């Protein structure tokens, strides 16, 4: 995939990681005591305590890794020499050179085809001569 598409994919990946992180943490967070008036909420240690403490760490590590990869991809961008006008000028001079080389190629091709026809003509005459099919004039 080209670099810009990879960058776009990486941006979307970072977005997905971000909302997955917040969504999962919000959904699975254990209840917390808000005010001293209300009693301590019943702590049900179903899968929470052990796995849950690592999830923020794992998910934030994934987020940071994705961001670092984005930076690496940005660094891999080819540096844009000049701007739009410089590119257009280069295209114009490349087109001119292409036309010149194309005409040279055309000339060489025509000369080569002419020589080929001459050789074919001579060869057919010599062959006919050899085989006595035509009267030599």
């Amino acid at each position, binding site marked *: 995939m080209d670099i*810009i598409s990879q*960058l776009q994919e990486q941006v979307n990946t970072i977005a997905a990681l*971000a909302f997955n992180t*917040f969504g999962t943490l919000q959904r699975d967070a254990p209840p917390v005591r808000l005010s001293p008036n209300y009693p301590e909420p019943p702590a049900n240690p179903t899968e929470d305590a052990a796995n849950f403490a690592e999830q923020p760490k794992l998910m934030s590590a994934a987020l940071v890794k994705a*961001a670092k990869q*984005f930076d690496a991809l940005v660094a891999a961008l080819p540096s844009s020499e000049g701007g*739009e006008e410089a590119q257009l000028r*280069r295209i114009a001079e490349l087109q001119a050179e292409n036309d010149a080389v194309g005409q040279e190629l055309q000339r060489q091709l025509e000369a080569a085809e002419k020589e080929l026809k001459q050789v074919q003509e001579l060869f057919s005459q010599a062959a006919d001569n050899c085989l006595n099919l035509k009267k030599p004039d």
Partner: protein
Amino acid sequence: MATATYPPPPPFYRLYKDYLQNPKSAPEPPPPVEGTYVCFGGNYTTDDVLPSLEEQGVRQLYPKGPNIDFKKELSALNRELQLHILELADVLVERPSQYARRVEDISLIFKNLHHLLNSLRPHQARATVIHILELQIQRRKQAVEDIKRRREEAQKLLKEALGTLDGP
């Protein structure tokens, strides 16, 4: 304009009855469309340009100007994004009801990122054209060299053959 479910093909084929005998008796193909046109009930334009962020009502976070340093702006936006994500996490812990503003900021950063990347595409297209032209020039030069070489070889062979024939 045909609006039937299965419209018949356009009746222009009758005009090309004598095309084989006289290619000029049939009408020319229509010229390319310019400006806006209607296709299957939808309006399309031939001028494909990326609308700037202001036209879409989105604030532009990176500086405008003739030449934008894409790498620097992209990394700056990435840093901003990470900071905002962290801010959102803090807000959710301390004052959960104020998440809306932070989420808006994050989506603004994403829109800017995507717009920057999209504005790189024309540049990439021109670079591709340059690359293809260079390749083509190289191939053509190679072909010219090949033809010259073959012609010289052929001349050499003919001279040798002439020598052999004239020999004894």
